[in-house]
């Protein structure tokens, strides 16, 4: 391929730059939703939320983001059809990145509905179906992905409903809510630590550790995850021991001390939420980058190419930069508005959403973290735990799907022909 010999360097750099641009957009916009709940329920200060987001988005992206990246790289487009047009494949992936990134930027400026996941998936479908051929899209896979956008909020809602019910049963609706909160909350903390470690060990780490050929068996993973879970619960117990009952505040609301205990738990679920978000959404930016790099290096489209771990690192870095430069502002705004979510509710919603997103990341499904979180919040609402929910927003969510897919696709087709003309 003369193209790759001539322009390989340029394409490589372009992919990295566009990938960073897209990751910046995700950090600037999307993270705020994942973290807004913790800030809103005042479990975390703004500063703490940003630090947690940076650390755990990074960790999630790097340690557990490989599977979804793989799906974005090779799960949407028919690679067999692509192998005769590696150049078109590279243009397409570059255009998808640029399209999704630009769309994210435009929508943010105008305050329109947007989802990073939907825009990148739409963009990839767009260039493949229109720029190459309708058969170039793995429609079966695509329907699975689109279906998951609808199913995951429902699953998250179901989980959060039962988590909150369990909290009511074990803690809130008892003789001694405060004592029971201190007794049972470490178990929730253990669950958070165990669960995230489990998915990461089984699914995510193979992309990071593949050079060392380290694979964890199921039993090994369970043991390690249990140890991590116990460590997490230990830290939690230490933090809980520093919280005492505030009898003065309890006079106006008997549960205010209990909520402070849940506030500690929420620090943990906030970490897991950031981790989950990083594990799923960073792939939107680095998936196409990985695709371009694989083709440029091999000179052909290969199904077997593995996602290099430094690409995950690139995406994680982009997200953190986006968060530090612009995302914190959005986070403040969102956090200020979400005051109705007390820690006992917020944790249930976050835990359920994080679990759902991390499972999806393990399976390799690109889903929308925000929609999942919306589903989880509605689940708590159904358990009669939230003062008022705007069901009108659900309509807005559907609108965001309807708008974002064709927008991403349209822009991507535009850029695709532009690159095609530029390089050939």
């Amino acid at each position: 391929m003369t193209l790759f010999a001539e322009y390989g360097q340029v394409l490589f750099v372009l992919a990295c730059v566009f990938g960073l641009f897209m990751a910046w957009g995700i950090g600037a916009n999307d993270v705020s939703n994942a973290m807004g709940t913790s800030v809103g329920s005042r479990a975390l200060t703004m500063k703490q939320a940003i630090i947690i987001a940076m650390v755990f988005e990074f960790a999630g992206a790097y340690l557990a983001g490989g599977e979804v990246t793989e799906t974005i790289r090779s799960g949407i487009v028919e690679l067999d059809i692509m192998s005769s047009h590696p150049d078109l494949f590279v243009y397409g992936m570059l255009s998808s990145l640029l399209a999704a990134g630009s769309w994210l930027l435009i929508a943010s400026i105008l305050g329109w509905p947007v989802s990073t996941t939907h825009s990148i998936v739409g963009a990839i479908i767009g260039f493949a179906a229109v720029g190459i051929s309708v058969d170039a899209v793995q429609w079966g896979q695509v329907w699975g992905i689109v279906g998951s956008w609808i199913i995951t909020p429902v699953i998250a809602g179901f989980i959060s409903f039962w988590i909150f019910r369990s909290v009511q049963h074990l803690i809130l609706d008892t003789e001694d809510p405060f004592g029971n909160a201190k007794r049972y909350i470490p178990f929730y903390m253990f669950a958070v630590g165990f669960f995230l470690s489990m998915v990461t060990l089984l699914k995510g780490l193979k992309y990071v550790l593949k050079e060392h050929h380290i694979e964890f068996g199921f039993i090994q993973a369970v043991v390690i995850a249990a140890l991590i879970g116990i460590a997490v619960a230990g830290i939690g117990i230490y933090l809980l021991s520093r919280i005492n009952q505030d009898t003065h505040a309890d006079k106006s609301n008997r549960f205010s001390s209990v909520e402070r205990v849940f506030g500690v738990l929420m620090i943990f679920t906030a970490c897991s939420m950031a981790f989950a978000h990083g594990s799923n959404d960073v792939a939107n930016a680095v998936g196409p980058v990985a695709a371009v790099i694989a083709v440029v290096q091999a000179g052909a489209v290969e199904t077997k190419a593995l996602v290099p771990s430094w690409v995950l690192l690139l995406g994680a870095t982009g997200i953190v930069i986006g968060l530090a430069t612009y995302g914190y502002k959005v986070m403040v705004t969102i956090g200020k508005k979400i005051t109705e979510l007390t820690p006992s509710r917020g944790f249930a919603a976050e835990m359920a959403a994080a679990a759902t997103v991390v499972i999806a990341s393990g399976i390799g499904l690109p889903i929308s973290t925000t929609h999942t979180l919306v589903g989880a919040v509605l689940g708590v609402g159904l358990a009669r735990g939230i003062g008022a929910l705007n069901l009108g927003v659900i309509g807005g969510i559907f609108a965001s799907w309807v708008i974002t897919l064709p927008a991403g696709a349209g822009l991507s087709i535009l850029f695709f022909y532009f690159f095609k003309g530029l390089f050939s």
Partner: protein
Amino acid sequence: MPFANLSNLFGRSPIKPMQEHMAVAIKAAGQLVGFFEAVTDGNWVLAGEIQQQVVKYEHEADDIKKQLRLHLPKSLFLPVPRTDLLELLTMQDRIPNRAKDIAGIIMGRKMTIPASMQDQMNEFVRASVAAAEQALTAINELDELLETGFSGRELTVVENMIKELDKLEEKADHLEIGVRTSLFALEAQLPPVDVMFLYNIIDWVGDIANRAHDVGGRLQLLLAH
């Protein structure tokens, strides 16, 4: 600002404004104790000031009520039925209205309460206001109820408060009968129109307790599922 912003999902919770409304409503009723004392002391200046206070609180309650009604669109998903909540609000709002009526008519007609009845009357007012305050105590549990998802032990706590409210309302009823009996004994010696209005006032003071009792009943309906 991206849409996918969660904050749009959260509506304004009606629970706190409900409690604020009730607090103001009971403030209006609570003024009646001092008002009747000023009236029986013949201190019309003070009575006038207190009556202004009652009017002010009644207006405040009205404002909160209007805001609440505007902010409870049908698209809101609430932990309790919207209709029950609005019904409860209406019930709450009837307390300050009655308090305003009482203070207004006594001021307007410069009514005096017969000396032999004054202590009895003041006690009756206090009992009625106590019932109203108990209703406020029950309404103040709404945020705790939300905390437990309107279920479980917290319901029992509210049940007990409402039982207490029943007792207080009954006590006010008994005192009302006493005051009426006293007035009946005196009515022949008093100007007939004054007697008519006095009966009216007794009725209305009793209404404060009755309406507080209605609020309790409505709250129970709200929680009964």
